[in-house]
């Protein structure tokens, strides 16, 4: 089983991004995803900067480097940027919208189906395989049981060896995307005058219930889980059902240590009690995502 570092979903200053990936280079990750997936207005790094950074990482490490692409694309300009990323000529691409699937299929190039694409079943997997899918990242709301059954079906249909399976396993989960920017709203600004204020919240902005319960994290147009998903105790089960890759979604440098801890589960599985005030694992267990088992 391999471990990946997912794309940073937050908006960080350029130098922080560069420093982060310098450290990531020396981490225990086998695969590094990078690129802007949330908002096209975030341009600390432009498409060419992301590509340059990704290509330099690819040349300096043995890790697989993947360019992640936007989820909610609403304008021709955004499609243009994505086209550049899809036609980078070198690096694997993670599609988070069917527009990227379409662009990769037109080039007849393999791609990763990211967690924001609604692939819930065998019939959909088969359509995407025909388009060129080489890896599938399961939507975050699905359970271990759902996955297990789907992988059995894939096995019976003789397609299981045609793609890898990746599971979002640690971090704040992306749960929703909107036209509205909730970070700008939280500062009482319209989106057209957002002043890129999400750069001031490197781990998003907490949205609590009026009883202080952590409900969601606001991250620009994206709404995230209030608690961090943590499937560290499920690594042996994932390994057994044939999951190929577990994804760690970074909130800061500490995510890099998480990769080490997750990998150690392969050697000797330990049970980590989860902190119900900060962590959750409900989705995997087929209950409310914010719950802890």
């Amino acid at each position, binding site marked *: 089983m391999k471990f990946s570092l997912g794309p940073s979903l937050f908006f960080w200053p350029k130098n922080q991004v560069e420093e982060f990936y310098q450290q990531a280079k020396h981490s225990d990750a086998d695969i590094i995803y990078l690129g802007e997936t949330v908002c096209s207005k975030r341009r600390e790094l432009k498409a060419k900067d992301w590509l340059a950074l990704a290509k330099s990482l690819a040349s300096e490490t043995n890790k697989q480097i993947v360019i992640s692409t936007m989820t909610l694309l609403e304008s021709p300009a955004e499609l243009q940027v994505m086209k550049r990323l899809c036609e980078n000529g070198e690096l694997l691409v993670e599609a988070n919208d069917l527009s990227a699937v379409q662009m990769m299929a037109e080039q007849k190039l393999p791609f990763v189906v990211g967690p924001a694409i609604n692939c819930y079943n065998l019939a*959909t997997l088969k359509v995407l395989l025909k388009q060129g899918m080489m890896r599938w990242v399961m939507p975050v709301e699905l359970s271990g049981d759902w996955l297990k059954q789907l992988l059995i079906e894939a096995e019976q249909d003789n397609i299981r060896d045609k793609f890898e399976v990746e599971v979002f396993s640690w971090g704040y989960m992306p749960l929703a995307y909107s036209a509205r920017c909730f970070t700008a709203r939280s500062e009482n600004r319209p989106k057209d005058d957002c002043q890129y204020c999400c750069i001031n919240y490197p781990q998003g902005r907490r949205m609590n219930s009026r009883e202080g319960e952590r409900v969601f994290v606001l991250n620009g147009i994206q709404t995230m889980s209030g608690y961090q998903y943590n499937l560290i105790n499920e690594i042996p089960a994932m390994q057994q059902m044939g999951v190929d890759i577990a994804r760690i979604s970074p909130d800061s440098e500490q995510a890099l240590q998480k990769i080490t801890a997750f990998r150690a589960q392969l050697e000797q599985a330990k049970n980590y009690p989860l902190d119900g005030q900060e962590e959750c694992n409900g989705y995997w267990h087929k209950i409310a995502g914010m719950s802890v088992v």
Partner: protein
Amino acid sequence: MELLCPAGNFPALKTAIDNGADAVYIGMKNDTNARHFAGLNFNDKKLFKAADYVHQHGKKLHVAINTFAHPGAQQRWQKAVDDAVAIGCDALIIADIGVLDYAANKYPHVERHVSVQASTTNLAAIKFYQQNFEVARVVLPRVLSIQQVRQLAQNSPVPLEVFAFGSLCIMSEGRCYLSSYMTGESPNTVGACSPAKYVRWQETDKGLESRLNNVLIDRYQQGENAGYPTLCKGRFEVDNNIYHALEEPTSLNTLALIPELFKMGIASVKIEGRQRSPAYVEQVARTWRMALDRFLQSPDDFQVESAWMTTLANLSEGTQTTLGAYHRKWQ
């Protein structure tokens, strides 16, 4: 431009047709559609009766099969397609790529519409559906500004349908897991958002509280209008500031956009609300019919009547309406 109205039961369907709908959309009585609520939707004889009534009046019937098929249960979604075709539906509204593939292969002659739950917001994604499944229409999510809709309409190889009125989803539909995060059940997997069985109302010293699976969604002072606790429309706290952090209880109303939507060549305007009463369907259908007819009679001096706005506001969440994402400032 087609007026497409919702129907959760036969009386609503009949009312929609009688009050000017060009087409009606319905769902099956199971989790294959995104309004999977107790006492709602159609099965067996009711399906045939619905199709008969619509077709006798020369109108069209669309069937929404717009949730995502579960492993081991794909037959249920396939059967929904089979049953819809068997009653002679005019269009299938589908969200799941696998279900679309099934429908396109088995019933190439039956129109396929890409459901709003498929979250298709750009030209390349539209091409994906057109090339793979020869879809006849794409329903746009409520995340695009009117300028963005216009741009798409100019270039789309597939006719477009937009939401015109009803409860406002503020997230890109089909890409929102907030409900399952809080309750375990989402529109995609179960066909319901903020399901009623998780809702609890409680009078407390601090006011009337609404909860969803125990999470406090809102608390109302006396005299405040208490609405259904859809989780994105509650009041929450961000750095000690308590407000509607995501959205206020409000409904979408685009009467004012009728001239523009016509000009763009939008194929259909859709009314939300299969879960609503026949009385709701009656008033919305009648009001929209009047507005559309008025525009057609004299397109150059079309004006929204205040009586129409009042009627629609009274049917809306929090009795207020918005242009939503169509209006850039809302975003």
